[in-house]
């Protein structure tokens, strides 16, 4: 299944925070162990695959109502279930102070691990960060609760189009959190060429000058998607066996041609010089400036995203699990994050992943110094969502075919 930009396995921030070793074993085992809890899954009869062409309005169930309006927020401890390094600690601190509560954050490392725990009903987090390809299943399994919009006036601060997203029409169960694109990061000081100078920008992955310094995202969807786009296949959610075969062979050819490596630490690999070309999430391009070694400036970095906007795009959301102990407080927290100032600070000071706030126009972000001028292409605009392609959920058969192709490539056959 799709990896998330925050599924950064051996990121140093993450490593230091978690205290290393056991983390691996635990994160892998937890998926298995969570399975022991069984699941309270309902029927999948109504399951639809949401895409921009097939936006889905999810049902509201009688036995899973939203909270009533006008309730006072609970006291106690707000429990957040999130990716690591995806929320500025000061946000938690300030929210706790303002509401006189405690805020506690627990991290997960893969969507599947999180879904396994949330769906088991054995955990009672108040705030959860799902992904577009899983939210439908979580809703149908009644693992999330519908949101009461009266607590969320700040949603008006967002781009109008994203207030009514294709994966959850009417934002019934989620509010948008961040947006990003998947492009190509490169070192302008190490390479004489760049993607925009090539007739086919994706050919940069085969550039012999970057052999051994070539990275793709370690992601079974993002990496093949660029192979499809290189070949003019704009349906990046294709399940056509011929397309899958083509993408797989393109990937395999990179092993000899470029000694390609796979990583999700794009935000450190490129600034530190491990990579000269790195398939990259735009949020990582913005964070990269914090990891530049002494003597290297942000001018050395480049980020390419198709000028016509026909690239890979994604967005994230926040939701409230049904099992939440503090649902009213959780609504307040969601609204707090949608506040213009809080959203901006969270992005500019810490995550690098851009919230879809109307107030954040590219000129302002560059003039504020949040995004270096040469990385302007890493800023997501509302109009990008009209042209770019999100990686949507696949049918189980399609997902299996893609995963097996990816596994074969990763086996280095």
């Amino acid at each position, binding site marked *: 299944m799709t990896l998330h930009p925050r599924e950064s396995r051996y990121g140093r921030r993450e490593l230091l925070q978690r205290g290393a070793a056991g983390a691996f074993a635990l994160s892998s085992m937890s998926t298995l162990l969570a399975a*022991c809890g069984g699941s309270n899954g309902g029927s999948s009869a109504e399951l639809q695959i949401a895409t921009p062409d097939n936006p889905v309005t999810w049902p509201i169930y009688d036995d899973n109502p939203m909270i009533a309006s006008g309730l006072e927020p609970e006291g106690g401890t707000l429990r957040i279930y999130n990716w690591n390094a995806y929320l500025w600690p000061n946000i938690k601190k300030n929210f706790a102070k303002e509401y006189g509560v405690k805020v506690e954050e627990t991290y997960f490392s893969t969507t599947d691990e999180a879904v396994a725990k949330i*769906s088991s009903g054995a955990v009672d987090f108040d705030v959860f960060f799902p992904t577009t390809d899983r939210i439908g299943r979580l809703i149908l399994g009644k693992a999330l609760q519908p949101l009461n919009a009266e607590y969320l006036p700040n949603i008006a601060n967002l781009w109008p189009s994203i207030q009514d997203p294709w994966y959850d029409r009417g934002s019934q169960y989620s509010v948008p959190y961040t947006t990003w694109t998947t492009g190509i990061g490169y070192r302008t000081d190490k390479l004489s060429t760049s993607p925009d100078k090539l007739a086919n920008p994706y050919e940069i992955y085969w550039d012999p000058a970057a052999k*051994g310094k070539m990275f793709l995202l370690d992601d079974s969807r993002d990496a093949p998607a660029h192979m499809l786009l290189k070949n003019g296949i704009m349906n990046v959610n294709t399940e056509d066996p011929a397309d899958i075969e083509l993408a797989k062979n393109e990937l395999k050819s990179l092993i000899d041609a470029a000694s390609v490596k796979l990583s999700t630490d794009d935000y450190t690999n490129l600034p530190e010089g491990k990579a000269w070309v790195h398939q990259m999430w735009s949020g990582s391009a913005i964070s990269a400036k914090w990891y530049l070694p002494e003597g290297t400036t942000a001018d050395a970095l480049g980020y390419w995203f198709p000028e016509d906007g026909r690239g890979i795009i994604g967005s994230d959301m926040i939701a409230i699990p049904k099992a939440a102990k503090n649902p009213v407080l959780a609504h307040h927290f969601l609204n707090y994050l949608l506040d213009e100032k809080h959203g901006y600070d969270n992005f500019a000071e810490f995550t690098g992943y851009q919230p879809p706030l109307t107030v954040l126009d590219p000129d302002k972000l560059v003039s504020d110094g949040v995004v270096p001028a040469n990385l302007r292409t890493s800023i997501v605009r509302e109009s990008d969502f009209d042209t770019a392609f999100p990686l949507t959920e696949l049918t189980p058969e399609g997902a299996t075919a893609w995963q*097996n192709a990816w596994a074969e490539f*990763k*086996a*280095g056959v």
Partner: protein
Amino acid sequence: MSEPTAPVGESDEGGRFWAGLALPGIAWLAVFFVLPFYVILCVAFGTVDPLFQTPTPEWNPLQWNTSAFEFVFEGLFTSGAGFQTVFVRTFVYVLVATTISLVIAYPVAYYVARYGGRWKGLLLAGLIAPFFISYLMRMLAWINLLQDDGWVNEVLMWIGVLDAPRNWLDGRASSVILGLVYGYVPFMILPLYAFLDRIDRSLLEAARDLGASPFQTFRMVTLPLSGPAILAGIVIIALPMFGDYYTPDLLSGAPQTSLIGNQVNLYIRGGQQVPVGAALVVVLMLFLTVLMGYYLYATARAQRRLGA
């Protein structure tokens, strides 16, 4: 190396008491080994939840679903398939890394055991020191040492072996094998040391008295005596190496150096084919059980021979 004492009869009161002492250990093994292994089996033979796509273990062996194993075996026995390629690669890497480890570990253990003298304690502490730092941290340290402007390149350029920095992290097998050797060699030194230290000096003196040269003494007395220890060291480091996936991930990250553990990780970390990952684990365990079985057989045989 004396003949083990004859087993005490079942009816013996004392025997039951001593057998009772094994109960906590047996309970421990049942709770922390047998049960988790059964869970893995049930996941491997299970299905996935149609809605959440999370693994659903099948607890009843009569209803086990074998499709994950069929998929794994097909990949293992099809030439050029992903699973077979990775399995063979893993075997080769472990073989090479274990051999290098033995070449490093034996002289070190031999030196400390025979010539450590009053430094023995300090040398042992030095050997144990790496255990105080997590495996992961040590591998991250190697990344820094091996990178373009790292010390490895600087030293090699200083002594004139290299003209320009070499990219050791570009996905080459040698870096991964180096990581494996570095990471596991202390685990081999310790059992070897423990055994070599216990060798009866009078045996060596007897060999010398009978006219053997120092080398002959080593070849005909010390080495055969340390056979079981060598085997133990090999087993101790080879078993975890077979399951290693973070060493290739950290020191290479390239598909051409990925190991069986990386494929397990890929299938277990995400997606709806967790049973395939679990089946790979089971197959790997079966393979390792065969190795382990040979080890047990060989040590039992050695015991008998020495006892005779």
